[in-house]
């Protein structure tokens, strides 16, 4: 059954040999040194301040939805930084490799990256940005905000929530490992078939890509189950469906997509894996395989996945614009309807990713019309946002700046999308960088919303505001970079530049490529300001402390409790009386009315099992990639054993007594996210082991 591989294989190390570590490649050595320095920079303070136990106990073993969300966001930001470096390298390669007379550096004929290395970089850029950057950040935001917005104490399944996180982390770690051990896929983030088949990609690159996606997609599916159950079953009393905050609505719709789309990705990757490991013929060119089957299965997931990312971004914008316009959201009901319309149509548009594959005019027409239909609910959303701002009392804080620019990005990305939905146009520009510029406008709109959300909700989670001065500069340079790079890229698309080129044959493209590189410089400056924003904010945190509602005009339930949010979320479960509960309480003079007494509160205990499952699933992935069967087999059996073992140790949780709660609330020393969550609890200590 097992495919017979060429090249060495040993039972202990599988395919792994010393020669698989690319220690001769200067680019990778630099990346390695950078990673080591960054790792030391993190490890030294942790060890110096003796915080290792704290981090393990309070973060790695935590089942608190806010901490899990923060860890998701940190994971996403780190991966986004790596994806950004990949993007920077792609742009720099293209500007240095334009025309036959362009010089070659290092081992490349043109530019500084040989083709095989360049291909790995664009593949990892796409995979990282979509699956491991934007995905985890939005999941993390949903994790933090949704239970707060619906007045819940935690997710429906806290321990499974932690398992989802650690599965995503282990997928991301597999991609990190591919940087230094072996190589990464050269077949793009979509896994171009049949390039991903064993005869054409015999190295471990495709396996890394495949297992990283597979493991993290299991995490996403579990998280979708968790969030949907939480929203349906854990709402506070009075939180009727017509009072559900819009971000919660979009998270619900996005996770319905996640729940139904990710299994299809799992099938596509599993069948590809069967081809690569067991020698089957699902997608091979010969022996009765069908290439288009992979392409269809992949995009049946792939297109809903795009809406999986964009819908929460719409939700974020819909939360921020009312807050800073001091008006309720215009057209709440139509907004919800539009969200679900987009989520529904998401299922009937996948073929527009390959109009030119020759499915025939009727099929193309169906998918073309379906794709254009998406423009209607999206248009509804844009008008709703604009009418929310109309005659509002607008304050241009940074989250608002990001949100308004996101609408403009949506306009550019959306209108070019409608152009591409027309098969006649699509035949002309498909595979050109015009398409790249289009979908980067869409994903950058998501990035804009993400930065808006991080700045908007950061004070809620950490109790102090981010520095406005540097965050505005971060915003300005990021937008400048975006406009510069992608305006030029739209033009280059019309001039005929195709995507994924490591060498560009037309010297006339050079001026616009230089413009793009200037845009990259702007992006670099903005990244600098991002780090400055974090540094200044943390340094001046004493001065930027904020109360329950840091913005003064927030409308939804999460701003009712303290900032930083205590580990129990709400001392007493709020009773919801209106849509935009906080705005209602403010208008009726109840905003500062605390509960008059407290009742016992039951909380879940931390658990080591999720993080161990994460480590083991990395072991499983790594073993499968290198065909180290004992490692993969042991990890898989250990995961199953741990899950069974876990089912024998039900979590009794612990109870916060009314006295404890009154003390914490009255002295306003409710422990925030950075503090030890709870005075060491005898039962909790015991259960950790």
């Amino acid at each position, binding site marked *: *059954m097992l495919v017979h591989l060429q090249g060495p294989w040993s039972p202990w190390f599988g395919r792994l040999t010393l020669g698989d570590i690319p220690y001769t490649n200067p680019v990778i050595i630099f990346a390695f040194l950078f990673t080591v320095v960054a790792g030391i920079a993190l490890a030294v303070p942790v060890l110096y301040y003796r915080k290792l136990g704290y981090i393990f106990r309070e973060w790695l073993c935590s089942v608190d939805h806010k901490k899990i969300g923060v860890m998701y966001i940190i994971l996403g930001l780190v991966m986004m930084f790596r994806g950004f470096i990949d993007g920077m390298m792609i742009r720099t390669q293209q500007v240095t490799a334009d025309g036959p007379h362009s010089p070659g550096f290092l081992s490349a004929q043109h530019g500084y990256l040989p083709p095989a290395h360049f291909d790995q970089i664009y593949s990892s850029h796409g995979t990282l940005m979509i699956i491991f950057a934007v995905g985890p950040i939005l999941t993390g935001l949903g994790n933090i905000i949704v239970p707060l917005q619906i007045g819940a104490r935690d997710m*429906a*399944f806290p321990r499974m929530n932690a398992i989802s996180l650690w599965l995503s982390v282990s997928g991301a770690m597999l991609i990190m490992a591919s940087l230094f051990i072996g190589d990464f896929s050269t077949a793009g983030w979509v896994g171009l078939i049949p390039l991903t088949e064993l005869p054409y990609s015999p190295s471990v690159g495709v396996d890394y890509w495949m297992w990283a996606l597979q493991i993290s997609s299991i995490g996403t*599916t579990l998280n*979708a*189950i*968790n969030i*949907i*159950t939480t929203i*349906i*079953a*854990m709402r*506070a*009393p*009075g939180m009727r469906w017509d009072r559900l905050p819009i971000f919660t609505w979009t998270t619900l719709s996005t996770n319905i997509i996640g*729940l*139904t*789309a*990710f*299994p*299809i990705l*799992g*099938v*596509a990757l*599993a*069948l590809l894996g*069967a*081809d690569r490991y*067991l020698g*089957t*013929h*699902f997608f*091979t060119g010969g*022996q*009765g*395989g*069908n290439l288009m*089957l992979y392409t269809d*299965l992949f995009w*049946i997931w792939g297109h809903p996945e795009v809406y999986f990312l964009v819908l929460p971004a719409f939700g974020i914008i819909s939360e921020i614009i009312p807050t800073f316009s001091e008006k309720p959201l215009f057209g709440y009901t139509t907004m919800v309807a539009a969200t679900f319309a987009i989520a529904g149509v998401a299922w009937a548009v996948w073929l527009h990713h390959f109009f030119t594959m020759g499915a025939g005019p009727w099929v193309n027409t169906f998918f073309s019309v379906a794709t254009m239909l998406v423009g209607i609910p999206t248009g509804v959303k844009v008008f709703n946002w604009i009418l929310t701002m109309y005659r509002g009392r607008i304050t241009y804080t940074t989250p608002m700046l990001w949100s308004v620019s996101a609408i403009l990005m949506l306009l550019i990305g959306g209108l070019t999308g409608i152009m591409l939905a027309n098969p006649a146009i699509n035949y002309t520009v498909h595979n050109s960088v015009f398409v790249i510029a289009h979908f980067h406008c869409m994903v950058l709109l998501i990035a804009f919303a993400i930065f808006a959300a991080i700045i908007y909700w950061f004070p809620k989670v950490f109790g102090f505001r981010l520095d406005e001065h540097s965050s505005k500069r971060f915003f300005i340079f990021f937008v400048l970079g975006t406009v510069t790079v992608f305006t030029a890229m739209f033009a280059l698309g019309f001039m005929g530049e195709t995507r994924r080129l490591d060498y560009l044959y037309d010297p006339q493209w050079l001026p616009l490529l230089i413009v793009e590189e200037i845009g990259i410089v702007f992006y670099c400056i903005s990244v600098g300001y991002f780090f400055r924003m974090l540094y200044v904010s943390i340094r001046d945190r004493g001065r930027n402390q904020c109360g329950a509602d840091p913005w003064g005009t927030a409308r939804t339930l999460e701003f009712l409790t303290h900032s930083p949010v205590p580990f129990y979320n709400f001392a*007493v*479960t*709020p*009773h919801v*009386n209106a849509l935009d509960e906080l705005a209602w*309480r403010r208008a009726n003079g*109840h905003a500062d*009315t*605390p*509960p*008059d007494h407290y*009742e016992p509160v039951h909380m879940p205990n931390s658990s080591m099992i999720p993080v161990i499952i994460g480590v083991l699933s990395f072991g499983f992935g790594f073993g499968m990639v290198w065909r180290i069967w004992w490692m993969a087999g042991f990890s898989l059996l250990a995961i*199953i054993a741990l899950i*069974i073992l876990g*089912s*024998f140790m*039900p979590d009794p949780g612990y109870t916060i007594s009314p006295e404890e709660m*009154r003390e914490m*609330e*009255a002295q306003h020393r409710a422990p925030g996210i950075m503090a030890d969550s709870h005075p060491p609890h005898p039962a909790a200590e015991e259960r950790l082991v």
Partner: protein
Amino acid sequence: MSAPKSTAGGAVQLWEYQPKPHDPVSTKTLGFWLYMLSDALIFAGLFAAYGVLDQPMNAAGGPTAMQVVHPVAAFWQTLAVLTSVLAYSLATVALKAGSRAGVALGILAAMALGLVFLGLELNDFVTLFAMGATPERSGFLSVFFVLIASHGLHMAFGLLWMLVMLVQIMRFGFTTEVVTRLLSLRLFWQFQASVWVCVYVFVYLKGIVP
């Protein structure tokens, strides 16, 4: 108590001091239904792949469905899986009566019939392998084996789960957690049976239609 009295008064209620506790059984069952939905999508993907690859072209000169499926033999499998579900359902009837022995007996019977099902399936695979019909032979045989083996893998996990539940019933009795798991397992087992019915119709019965 130093906390100020609520100024709300009257009709407005701001806090819910004793919220109705969330029903753990219904919450977990909802979560499990959602998981089953994602599992259904996995099978939907596999059935779609089967539909695509069940063409004469995809047999690549090797055996076609007509030559590898035996609906009569597979009927015994169908019978085994459906009676297994019946046995499990009898276990849940015993669960209502709170009879530990009755539940254990029902689960044991369900496991035995599940094992019969898997044994018949393995036997079928061995026969096919012996005549040279292996997954490597053609695109059609790849999807044939992977679809059926995916279902078989689910059945095997169901059996493992039953084994765990037998131990938990003996050890913990019918606690909320155990009962929730028994109900989820019933859902899982019935779902796998319905998937098998689809396999039987779309693979075995459709296979003999020329």
